[in-house]
């Protein structure tokens, strides 16, 4: 075991967890308001990264301007997805909505290859390349910034839900759709808003991930690691998404880094650590840390 590198792996894991937390935030947001688990979040994230790349490459825009433009595009993408694909399914069983997001993910997978090509792309450098050094720990600046964006997103969402009209409306809709509708809230519009915000968050995550690992059509697979994060934190909980994301990041970082026995390393345990963690969460605490316990009646 590489215990002397423990702080390094812990810090890297924590920062990577920031990206998972960002993805998990989007999933929780949609689930909270509309009871739809979005399997396509990873693909929205990928599209966000590719759109940013397209603006810099084809229009020659500055990378930050492209980033902002991509967030705007994502808002419209989210609205369109909700309107075209998911609104017709309101009231359908859960399998239908899961299949719809899976179908969307396939469609977007194909769409990205069609529009942007299948080869690997990379964004222009957004942050200086020198690492941040704290004691023995060296951290890549883009990881640190990704983490920072995660925290900023979290705080912004907390404010949004606590102090804005739209945020409070969304909380109300999350409690009970019919009740919210009967006090005059437009529930479908709230769903649309949730999708728009979630897509915007996904785009931020996508650009951060593209900074860290480059843009490719398998970027969406990385987003699947946010699922254990969502379940661990609890499906309805925004702080839970952050804690879950960081936990998954740390677990992955430690499992990937600590063992130095070559036989153990050759197993690539880090690939499945999040999913084993997912199974454990499901077995021992399926509602997650802050999720709501559901009471069932016949």
């Amino acid at each position, binding site marked *: 075991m590489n215990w002397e590198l423990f702080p390094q792996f812990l810090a890297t894991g924590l920062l990577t967890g920031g990206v998972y937390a960002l993805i998990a935030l989007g999933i929780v947001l949609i689930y909270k308001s509309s009871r739809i*688990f979005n399997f396509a979040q990873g693909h929205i994230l990928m599209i966000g990264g590719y759109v940013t790349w397209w603006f810099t490459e084809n229009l020659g825009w500055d990378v930050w301007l492209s980033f902002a433009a991509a967030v705007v595009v994502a808002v419209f993408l989210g609205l369109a997805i909700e309107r075209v*694909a998911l609104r*017709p*399914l309101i009231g*359908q069983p*859960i*399998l*239908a909505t*899961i*299949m*719809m997001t*899976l*179908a*969307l*993910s*396939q*469609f*977007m*997978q*194909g*769409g*990205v*290859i*069609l529009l942007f*090509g*299948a080869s690997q792309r990379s964004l222009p450098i957004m942050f200086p390349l020198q690492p941040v050094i704290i004691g023995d720990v060296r951290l890549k600046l883009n990881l640190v910034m990704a983490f920072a964006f995660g925290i900023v997103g979290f705080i912004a969402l907390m404010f949004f839900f606590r102090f804005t009209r739209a945020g409070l409306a969304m909380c109300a809709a999350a409690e009970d759709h019919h009740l919210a509708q009967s006090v005059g809230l437009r529930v479908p519009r709230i769903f649309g808003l949730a999708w728009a915000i979630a897509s915007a968050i996904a785009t931020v995550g996508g650009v951060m991930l593209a900074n860290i690992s480059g843009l490719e059509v398998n970027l969406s697979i990385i987003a*699947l690691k946010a*699922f254990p994060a969502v*379940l661990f934190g609890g499906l309805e909980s925004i702080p839970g998404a952050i804690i879950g994301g960081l936990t998954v990041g740390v677990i992955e970082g430690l499992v990937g880094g600590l063992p130095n026995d070559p036989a153990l390393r*050759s*197993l*690539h345990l880090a*690939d*499945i650590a999040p*999913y*084993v963690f*997912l*199974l454990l969460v*499901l*077995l021992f605490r*399926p509602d997650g840390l802050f999720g709501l316990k559901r009471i*069932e*009646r*016949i």
Partner: protein
Amino acid sequence: MALRLAGDFDTSYAHDMAIIRNRGQWAMTIVFLIALFTLPFFASADILGTINLIGISIVAVQGLNLLVGYTGQISLGQAAFMAVGAYTSAVAVKAGIPFWFALPLAGLSGGLVGLIFGLPSLRIKGFYLAMATLAAQFIIPWFFRNVRVDLFGGMPGLRVPPPQIGDLIFNSQQTMFYPIIGTVVICTIVAKNIARTRLGRALIAIRDNDLAAEVLGINAFSYKLRAFFLSAFYAGLAGALWAHYARSINPEQFSLISSIWYLGMVIVGGMGSALGPILGATFVRLLEEFTVQASPLLGKAFPQLEAGLLAALCPMVFGVALMLFLVFEPRGLAHRWEMIKAAWRIRPFAH
């Protein structure tokens, strides 16, 4: 209530339960089976290849339908259970175990692994169970990629010998047709009959309301596990057939994407009927085949898109088809077929 043929009265319990109800249907069944099993003598290898692929998909989807369509449990791991069957059969046949024995063995091993990943269904259901099977979908291919590389071949995978029964070697599309279609026919009949037994009725009760089913004295957990076992057993069979059909297997073939495709076939075909998987698998595979044939033409029309056109179009076409079915025909092709049949039987009246 299904409309029955005019003048066809149930005079005994056996007749009431019969699937094939009169001489005309018997004659049609026999003609169909003869036509099916003589197909390799006059169809080309290309067409047979497509039919074989459809057959393998039907077996996997038939199993998935037992779990998703009848029991109402969502599984995102069908391809992973296929991997278990494929590797079992490949390793067994390489070790000299005859194919006729390796095939059920593959089903059994797939079923047992499915049972393990069905265990969380004790506490969770619906979407949470989808997550547990999603974990299976990553853990199982990881296992074949990284563990016992000497046995399973790691990343590059294994070459699989053609199956052999006695002196017969199934090494072409024509010969592989028989084990595949034989399995399809048996699996379909078994699935159709499972739905009519105590087991099938219990599964349907669990799907409709698992708490109510439990109150009625159905041990929901035990029946859910049986559904998981059956579903993964079918997946194991399909995986073994796939291994000997493709003749080389690697962990990449059994990806999350293929699991999604099998689920899509269940939806397109129609959940909760034995006909659904046949229609769904055929429809989706033919759609895929059509896309494969059409994409070079499109590539000529839009040369700037040519690279990666196929990789782009297949998931897009599948995604759109699935979305359209979910919105406009959530009960699938099997339901549509029932409607056509009913309309034909009561013609010329409207209802």
